[in-house]
């Protein structure tokens, strides 16, 4: 990963252009002061790390019954639900408090990574593969019901973060490997907050570019000179190659606050913005390039959205009927090839047909002077709001219906560990909201996603075919409505979680 600091474009030199009217969380008394503090991120990470250690301990040495195990419960119910809800109301708060980064930071005190991330892997393909692998393993090995393997997954995650970032410079793990990170990056395009420059005019006059280069001690009189470049970094700049004045939105932003800590002009804030607006913005983005020219982002948005449907579909009865039917006609008696077939159908064949058809119709109706693939790349972003809505509905269902179950599980863990009810006797009647209340919330999330996808695709249609916006918009609106309908149908089905597919 190389970072070049280019001159700012003329239009960004207008003082106060960005964020002048936006609310800035960093201006909030106490909270803003805390967040600007150099150790604020670590302060948020430590409790999550401690919780992760408890989860690992309970995964391996606690009861191997998922409903009574903190690792299974917190990973598959609370963590997933809180991640998407936090993004909905704030931003990428999980990456901000990511516990996997603390051991990595410790390791980097002793290990200085030598290599740049391989050029051929500077894209999203590896992380897309890992994202699909996690979804596949989740279904195949019934991870939701297996505390031990859930613990293994958490430990492997810690190890992978340490190993990758001990070998490779900057935040290679976050940017190119972490599947949770990619999920959060895409989801946080729908967040109402972003780390952004307060006043671009100040950036125009800035010569040190600490937000990307980092801050080093003075060497031969001025910062940023060749001599000072060899000195140790006092405060690093963005490790994900996002140069603040050219950064657009939340893609690839881990909310690590390095830019906030590094900026000598206190010119980076947490600003409010219109959720999803960044999806309709064209142009080149720092550290990313043009999204419309990156097929890996198209694939990521596609897997994100169709994976949401697949992950939810796997929770209801019809999936077992489908799998049983496939097993009968093929004679297969093992699950993985059938599951692999379903994944291929849902994540490759179905999107190829649907997106290809929508793009072909768009080309025909709007007369857009672009290839089908170019049109797909142009509109793929519009899937993200709906995909996020489906994840919200799915994970929100589990969280809202079961958020209080952590109380008796924690009480039981304390009782079994210490032999006395130090947290009280387990209150097993604690659950969550009734499904009758949660269902309208799910529908609301899905409808928000649909409206978001329509707004983004309208904007993208206008960019592609200014004279025939409606014609370019219609095929994608129909596609979104179709996916919305499927999602609503899935959410109306009674949940049916089985660990055994064939004959189960």
């Amino acid at each position, binding site marked *: 990963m190389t970072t070049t600091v280019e001159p700012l474009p003329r239009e960004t030199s207008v003082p106060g252009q960005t964020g002048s009217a936006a609310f800035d969380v960093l201006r909030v008394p106490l909270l803003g002061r805390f967040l600007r503090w150099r150790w604020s991120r670590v302060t948020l990470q*430590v409790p999550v*790390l*401690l919780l992760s*250690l*408890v989860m*690992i*301990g*309970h995964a*391996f*040495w*606690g009861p191997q*019954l*998922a*409903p*009574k*195990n903190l690792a*299974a*419960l917190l990973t*598959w*119910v609370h963590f997933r639900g809180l991640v998407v809800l936090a993004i909905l109301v704030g931003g990428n708060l999980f990456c901000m408090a990511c516990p996997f980064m*603390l*051991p990595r*930071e*410790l390791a980097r*005190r002793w290990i200085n990574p030598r290599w740049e991330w391989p050029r051929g892997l500077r894209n999203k393909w590896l992380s897309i593969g890992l994202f699909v692998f996690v979804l596949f393993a989740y279904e195949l090995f*019934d991870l*939701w*019901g297996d505390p031990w393997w859930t613990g293994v997954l958490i430990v492997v995650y810690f190890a992978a973060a340490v190993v990758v970032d001990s070998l490779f410079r900057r935040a290679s793990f976050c940017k190119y490997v972490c599947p949770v990170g990619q999920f959060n990056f895409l989801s946080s395009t729908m967040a109402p907050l972003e780390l952004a420059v307060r006043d671009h005019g100040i950036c125009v006059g800035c010569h040190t570019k600490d937000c990307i280069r980092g801050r080093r001690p003075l060497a031969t009189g001025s910062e940023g000179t060749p001599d000072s470049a060899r000195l140790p970094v006092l405060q690093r700049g963005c490790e994900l190659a996002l140069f603040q004045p050219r950064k657009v939105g939340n893609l690839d932003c881990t909310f690590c606050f390095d830019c906030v800590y590094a900026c000598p002009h206190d010119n980076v804030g947490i600003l409010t913005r219109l959720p999803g607006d960044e999806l309709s913005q064209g142009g080149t983005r720092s550290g990313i390039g043009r999204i419309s020219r990156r097929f890996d982002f198209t694939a990521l948005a596609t897997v994100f959205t169709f994976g949401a449907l697949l992950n939810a579909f796997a929770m*209801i*009865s019809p999936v077992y009927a489908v799998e049983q039917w496939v097993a009968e006609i093929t004679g297969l008696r093992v699950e993985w090839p059938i599951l692999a077939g379903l994944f291929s159908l849902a994540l490759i064949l179905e999107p190829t047909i649907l997106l290809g058809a929508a793009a072909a119709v768009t080309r025909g109706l709007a007369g857009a002077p672009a290839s089908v693939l170019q049109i797909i790349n142009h509109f793929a972003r519009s899937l993200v709001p709906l995909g996020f809505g489906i994840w919200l509905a799915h994970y929100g269902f*589990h*969280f809202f*219906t*079961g958020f209080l*179950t952590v109380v008796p*599980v924690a009480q039981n*863990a304390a009782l*079994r*560990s*210490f*032999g006395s009810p130090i947290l009280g006797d387990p209150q*097993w*009647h*604690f*659950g*969550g909201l009734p499904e009758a209340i949660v269902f309208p919330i799910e529908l609301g999330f899905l409808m928000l996603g649909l409206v978001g996808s329509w707004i983004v695709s309208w904007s993208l249609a206008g960019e592609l075919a200014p004279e025939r916006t409606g014609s370019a918009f219609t095929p994608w609106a129909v596609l979104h409505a179709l996916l919305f309908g499927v999602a609503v149908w899935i959410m109306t*089905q*009674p*949940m*049916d*979680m*089985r*660990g*055994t597919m064939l004959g*189960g």
Partner: protein
Amino acid sequence: MRCVSHLATCVSWLIVCAAVATAGCSPPTSTAPGVQVDLTVAPSPPVVGDADVTLTLKDANGSPLADAVVSLEGNMNHAGMKPSFAELHEGEPGRYAGKLEFTMGGDWFILVTAKTSDGQIVERKIDVPGVQAE
């Protein structure tokens, strides 16, 4: 640097404490391995709603174990669901019956706890796969 070293030390201790806390102090439970426990659920296959549950308890010689206090706890195999509880009542000696609610379709397991008249605690986990949603 000193701060980081302290943090590393704290983390190491916490790993040890977490392992000890979650493993080392669990009280042993007797599961009376010689006792035979048979559970039947009706309807079969089970469906969402109240199910009729019948449990027979026999000692190692096959003789019915009467006058036991039997309770059931039904859980789904995934986290985030409230368990269902049932107390079973003895009809004929060694045969206990009651109702247990399956609140959702999917794989369940039932934790059986029986305290026999001679004070033995019998614990079993019995899988009930494929409770049908409708």
